[in-house]
Structures are given as C-alpha cells and as structure tokens.
C-alpha cells in the first residue's frame, strides 16, 4: 500500500506541476525515480515535522499541493499544533501520507504505533481522514487527492495487505462502499479491518448469520446516508477499527446515529483496541488477534452480541 501511494505521488507529479513530495527522513531510495525526474519537487527536509508542516502550509498558500510523508505517529503527535493551525485553520490542500497506521509497526513498540491518530485528526475542523484498505484502493484514493479542498490525512497500512477492494465499486472520498448487503448485522469497517470483516462474514454465514459490510474508508466526512441505509432492518451495528475506542470510527458512527436517530438507536457493538498503549510486540496480526480483532474473534463477538440483542429489528428511520 505504501509503495503504491508513493508511486502515485510520482505519477501525479508527472501530471501536475503543483505536486511536491516532502519527506522528513524516509527510507533510503524513497521515490528515487521521482527525485531524478523532478529533483526540485522531491524534498527531503529532515526530522523536523513541526517545521515541515509549516513549510508545507507556506507552499500550499502559493498554489502547490504538498504530499508530506513520514511515520503516522510523528505526522500526528509531534506536530499536532502545526497541523491544526497551519493546515486546518487555513484549510490548505496539504496531504499527510502516514506510514504505518494502527499497529503496522508492532515490533517497534508504542512510540511507533498510531492507535489514536484517527481520533485526533478527525477532531480538527476542515480535516479529511481516509483509511484505504489495500493498495488498489490507495491508488484510487490518490487519484482523487489532487483537487480535494483542504488537508487530508491518509492512513496507510502495512503493504502486502490482501487486495479486497474492487474497481467496479469505484471510489469517492466521503462515500462509503457497501461490500456485503446488510443482514442480521452490518459491520462498519475502515482501513485493513475490511479484510478481517470479510473473513468474519464468511464464518458468520456458516452459522446462518447474514452479515453485511459497509466499508467506511473515509472516516471524516462520514457518509451518514450510506450508514443509515445500511443499518435499516439489521439487529446489530458492529464497528471494527484498529484504534483505541475513543474518537475513532466507532465514535463517529455512534455520534452520527445519535444525531440522526435520537431515540430508537440500534444495538451497537464497538470492536477496537483497548484504551491503553500496547506493550507487546510481535506483528500487526498477532496484536490484532490478542485484542479480539481477528476474523475468528470478530465473528464470535458478533454472534454473542446478536444473542443478547433484541430479535426484532429496531424501528430505524432516517431524519
């Protein structure tokens, strides 16, 4: 996913002279081809994230579209005030390409695990937050970033994630994709939780439970209409996220449902990481499994929640 997103920056740069790549201190050879073809627009600015965000704001004020790239935690925690003030307050078209969203850097420990990035980025006015599920979807997303108004936070996965997105679904920032029709339950996913949801849906189907999947690649702005459509007639809404429980996809979905439905809310299950830093290493998969976010664990949690939830569908309606 990361290589695809990087290559897309090069491709966009070839198409549009406003495009800049700005890295802090990325891996050796990052976008080497672009650095040769467009040396003036391939900028490596050092481990100085606060400065880089401000500098990108200045470049965007002059009509450039900077794609800023480093590890997700450094792109969010270190320079949060610059993101808030320089980018969001000025509503500038800077793209933050965050390597290693979620638990990708599991072996490197909690300093490198972006577990609250969606929450803090989503909290900022004017910010758009997108979490593609695989390399193909990352490519489709990048195509749309050139002319999107305002800043975008792009949470990338590990790379090598199974390709599950489909070209026929298209891609539009802010428009959720219904991957499986709603049934007894609808799972709402973002990022690489989609792959787990698809596998969990198969496991549930084997138990006679019909599970829908709404892929909410854009967490902000949230596609509330698609959400309301997808939950109609279901007994349970389950949100799946590689993120702490506060402020992420589960929160966004709950807020939207409360705002739109008020009373008559559906039963809801929020599956997420716990509200604590990870002190285990291993791999992204092993940490997800440890915290109940493997396909098996998701299916089990949903089946259990369905038993506890009312058998009749809640009276869902859109307002």
């Amino acid at each position, binding site marked *: 996913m990361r290589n695809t997103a990087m290559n897309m920056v090069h491709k966009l740069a070839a198409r549009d002279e406003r495009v800049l790549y700005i890295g802090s201190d990325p891996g050796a050879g990052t976008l080497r081809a672009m650095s040769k073809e467009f040396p*003036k*627009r391939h900028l490596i*600015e*050092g481990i*100085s994230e*606060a*400065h*880089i*965000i*401000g*500098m*990108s*704001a*200045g*470049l*965007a*004020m*002059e*009509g*450039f579209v900077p794609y800023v790239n480093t590890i997700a935690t450094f792109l969010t925690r270190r320079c949060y*005030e*610059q993101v808030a*003030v*320089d980018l969001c*307050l*000025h509503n500038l078209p800077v793209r933050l390409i965050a390597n290693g969203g979620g638990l990708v850097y599991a072996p490197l420990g909690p300093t490198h695990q972006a577990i609250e990035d969606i929450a803090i980025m989503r909290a900022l006015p004017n910010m758009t937050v997108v979490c593609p599920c695989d390399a193909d979807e990352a490519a489709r997303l990048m195509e749309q970033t050139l002319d999107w108004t305002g800043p975008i936070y792009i949470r990338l996965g590990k790379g090598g994630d199974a390709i599950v997105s489909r070209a026929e679904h298209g891609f539009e920032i802010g428009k959720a994709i219904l991957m499986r029709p709603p049934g007894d339950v609808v799972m709402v996913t973002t990022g690489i939780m989609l792959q787990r949801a698809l596998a969990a849906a198969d496991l549930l189907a084997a138990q006679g439970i019909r599970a829908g999947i709404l892929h909410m690649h854009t967490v902000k702005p949230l596609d509330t209409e698609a959400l309301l459509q997808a939950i109609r007639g279901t007994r349970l809404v389950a949100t799946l996220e590689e993120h702490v429980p506060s402020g992420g996809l589960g929160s966004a979905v709950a807020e939207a449902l409360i705002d739109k439905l008020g009373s008559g809310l559906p039963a809801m299950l929020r599956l997420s990481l716990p509200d604590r830093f990870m002190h285990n290493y291993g791999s992204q998969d092993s940490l997800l499994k440890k915290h109940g976010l493997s396909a098996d664990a998701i299916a089990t949690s949903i089946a259990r929640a369905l038993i506890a939830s009312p058998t009749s569908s809640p009276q869902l309606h859109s307002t």
Partner: protein
Amino acid sequence: MTQISPHAEAALTCTLDERSLYLRRLVLGSVRSAGRGHVGPALSLIEMVRVLYDDVLRIDPSNPRDPARDRAILSKGHGCLALYALLADRGFFPLSELDGFCGPDSILGGHPEYGMVPGIEASTGALGHGLSIGVGLALAARLRERTYRTFVLLGDGEINEGSVWEAAMGAAKHGLDNLVALIDYNKLQSYGPTDYVLPLEPLADKWRSFGFAVQELNGHDVGALRTVLKQVPAVPGKPTAVICHTVKGKGLPAAESNADWHHKNKLTDSELDAIRVAVGDF
C-alpha cells in the same frame, strides 16, 4: 554577565518622531476601546513594522493578494496591534476598524487571522509557526522563479520554540536569500527577562551558526532599519536575520521594560493621562 549591546542602549535612549507617536496613539486607542490588548509587545515592534510597510515591502493596499507582492508574516501574533495600526494607516482597511478591536463583530482579533483582515498573510498567535510558513513562501518563490521577498517578524520569547530553529536550518539548507527574519529583541517575555526565562545569548552567533547573514541594530531607529532592510539579501545565497534591539513598551515610560504591561486590561484614568503626556492626545 552578558555585555549590553550598544544597540540595546541606543534603543533605550532614542527619541521617537511624530509618525511613531501617531502610530502609538492608534495602538493605544484600540486598547482603550477594547479594554484589553498586548501593549508592550506592540510598542516594541512599531518601528520595525512601520519601516517594512512604509519603505520596504512592495505592496498595494488596493490589491492585497497581488501575486507579485512581498509577503510579511507577523509570527509573534500577539504584537498585532502594531500591524493593525500600520495596515489601517496604509489603507488596507478603514481606520475606524481599530476601535472595534476584539469586539464581537470585528475583523480585528487579539491575534491576526488570515481571511479576516486584508493584508494578513497567515493566522498567527501560537508561537513558532511563522518562520516555517515563511520558508514555504520563499521556497515557492524559488520554485516558481518569482521575485517577491518574504519577511517574518519573530518575538524573542517566541524563539524559545524549537520549531523556529528547525525552520532556520531549513532556510539555510535551501539558501533562501529571499527570506528575512526580523527578531524583536526586547529582552522581556511574559513572565520576565529572557535571560531569566530561557537565555538566548549569544543570539547573533546562534543565527550565524544556523547559516544566516546577521545584522544587528537599534529597532527603534527608523533610518537604520531602512538602510538594512533595503539591502536584502545581506549576503547572496543566505537567508538574513535582523536582530532588532528594542524596548518592550517603548514610548510609554510606565510600560517600558515592564512585564506588567505585556498584556493590559482596562486603562485607568491616570494611565490614560500618562499616555497622553507620552504620545499626545488621542
């Protein structure tokens, strides 16, 4: 003990001409109307802003977004009263706006906002942001082969922020000789003396070692400011830092070098009388 710069001594003793007094009357009128404002940080800054807007910047108040204009960012956004006075006097917006400072429907807040105030290039107030934005503006000029220059006004307390020194390294890396950092070195931040809060000396050597061409002067000396600011870049291929030795609260004896006047709420009748004596009726 740090040796006192002759420029700092000159800043303490130099007199102000009528235009400088007039601009102070505008600033203090805003404070009187609003019942609040950062007085000391604005009064130390006035001559720096005055010379920029009167003599140096290539700007057109009737076309504040002219692509060819020079860019100026007040990174120490809390000094905005000085900038508002200049912008109003130069016709970016009506002088009457100054009376609405911090009011519910005013365009003029306690820190300047891009998009609200004609002539403001960037919203500032959180410190340590302006120089990085300035690096971006200056680099954009380089990439686009444009001739505008970028001036960034920084406070001395502000440069406690590490991001300023990240930006300084970036400016030097790119050899941005179209970028000028002006440091309002009044030696007094909110709590007290910069030497106490976080010593900055040797300040000129710091900027020099970060790759800047450095000039030092009395920041209330209009002539010296004109001479230096009209000769940028000081050294081709290098960004310029102009260390302006100033006096916080300059022009008001009660406020000079007095941290209590960093931010001032309602002015008392006796304070207003003292102001009239110092800068004239307003």
